[in-house]
């Protein structure tokens, strides 16, 4: 993206890329239609046809499926993701910054952190269920674990990769205390922090779907689980598409926040 912007004619090249992408999408849609509805090469029990998918979408949006309508599922899943993500980031970023800045904090926290880190987030699900049952709290806890690790690691890396001469310049200018944290440490680490947030967000969605598959009252994972049990491929597809859309919207929002928070990084 950066190179496209900095080369002359980058804008037109970017526009061409959009057209090529749209064309590929159109080809895929046509192919889908031809292979299912038109010729029946792929049977509808294996992969749904476009009209079936549209019908499933209507059903989910208007009548509801798996104890809720589309917007209820999407909102419920998004709420859990946001809660787990926010809790993980609020704890993880300051911890990562502190570990990056202070050898003492690092020495204290690192052994515990390194022990927990290799455990895949999904492996926490059984423990979360034992502690908190099948409700939302257990899911938030598992998401928290998934999102916590990348936000810590990247905030830590952010501090460690600050150019030493910037730290020397700030000492020379007499920057101290809170002003140092807010005006030097945080902005210098910000690119890495945002990388961490992006990875945390992705991990949150992955984990949420898995956690909802195990058991949920509402949510996109529940839609996926119910449609699998009903052998309803069109609905499975709709569930997948909306997991993608909801995750994508959050990732884009995060990118907008980053552009706002770090205007100096625009080339």
């Amino acid at each position, binding site marked *: 993206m950066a190179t496209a912007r900095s080369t002359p004619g980058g804008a037109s090249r970017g526009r061409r890329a959009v057209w090529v992408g749209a064309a590929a999408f159109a080809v895929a849609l046509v192919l889908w239609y031809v292979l299912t509805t038109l010729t029946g090469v792929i049977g509808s029990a294996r992969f749904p046809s476009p009209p079936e998918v549209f019908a499933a979408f209507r059903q989910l949006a208007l009548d509801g499926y798996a104890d809720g309508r589309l917007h209820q599922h999407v909102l419920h899943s998004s709420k859990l993701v946001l809660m787990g993500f926010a809790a993980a980031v609020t704890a993880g970023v300051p911890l990562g910054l502190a570990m990056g800045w202070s050898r003492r904090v690092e020495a204290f926290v690192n052994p515990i952190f390194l022990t927990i880190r290799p455990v895949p987030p999904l492996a926490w699900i059984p423990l979360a269920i034992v502690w908190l049952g099948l409700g939302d709290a257990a899911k938030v806890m598992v998401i928290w674990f998934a999102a916590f690790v990348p936000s810590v690691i990247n905030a830590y890396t952010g501090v460690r990769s600050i*150019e030493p*001469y910037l730290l*020397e*310049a700030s000492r*020379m200018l*007499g*920057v101290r205390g809170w002003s140092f944290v807010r*005006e030097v440490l945080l902005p*210098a680490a910000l690119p890495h922090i945002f990388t961490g947030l992006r990875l945390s967000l992705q991990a949150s969605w992955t984990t949420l779907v898995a956690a909802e598959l195990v058991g949920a009252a509402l949510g996109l994972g529940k839609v996926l689980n119910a449609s699998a049990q009903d052998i309803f491929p069109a609905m499975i597809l709709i569930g997948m598409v909306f997991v993608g859309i909801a995750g994508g919207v959050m990732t884009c929002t995060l990118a907008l926040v980053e552009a706002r928070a770090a205007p*100096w990084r625009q080339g």
Partner: protein
Amino acid sequence: MSNIVFDAVTRVFRRDGKDFPTLDGISLEVRDREFVAIVGPSGCGKTTCLRMAAGLEFPTSGRVSVGGKEVTEPGPDRAVVFQQFALFPWKTVWDNIDFGLRNKGVLEAERRRRVGDIITLMGLEGYESAFPHQLSGGMQQRVAIARAYVLDPDVLLMDEPFGALDAQTRTVMQEELVRLARKNPRTVLFITHAVEEAVYLSDRVVVMSRRPGTIREVIDVASVRQSENWDRLERIEEVMDQDSFVHLRTRIWKLLREQQAPNDH
């Protein structure tokens, strides 16, 4: 009085249990409002000298003091201009220059006046709200010099400030620095390995030996500048054309040549 005094300063690096002396008995006084340049082969420890005056490094033995006070930590009374500019990428030109004054607790109105003045003096008008990455290397270094000058420091420590600039920009910046230094004299310690730059800018040039660094010779430029009246000349190339300039330059070149190891030429 704000002089810089190096008193029998040595510096030893320890690596793998072995001692590597980098500076060996440096004694030097940069007098109040004097412009002193240190030249020397790479690795001779000239940058270490500057960093010790800044309080970013410390001698193994001996003493470095500024204005009679031993240097114990960095501070805005000893402003540093770094070779890599070291501007804060997330701050605008104005905020970069203003940052040090704000930390010193200077009042808003006075800050605005002083930052505004230095921006005019350094020819940075119109770039106040630009971010460093939007500026050329020469402009960034102007900001870095402005950021140091605005603090009204006792001493100014410049570590190869023009090393990263192209030849033309470098020339312009050298002329501007001379203009600034005449208008607003400061005690300056200037590190460079460009001999012409050293002779053009300074009152005295210190030639260092190769590692472990010692002072090979101190050359008085100020008296030649005065007797030959270089200051009447506007441009750097006119000064560099003077026989007196060429003579000094050649002499320093020869001293530096002698410092080169026989196998690195």
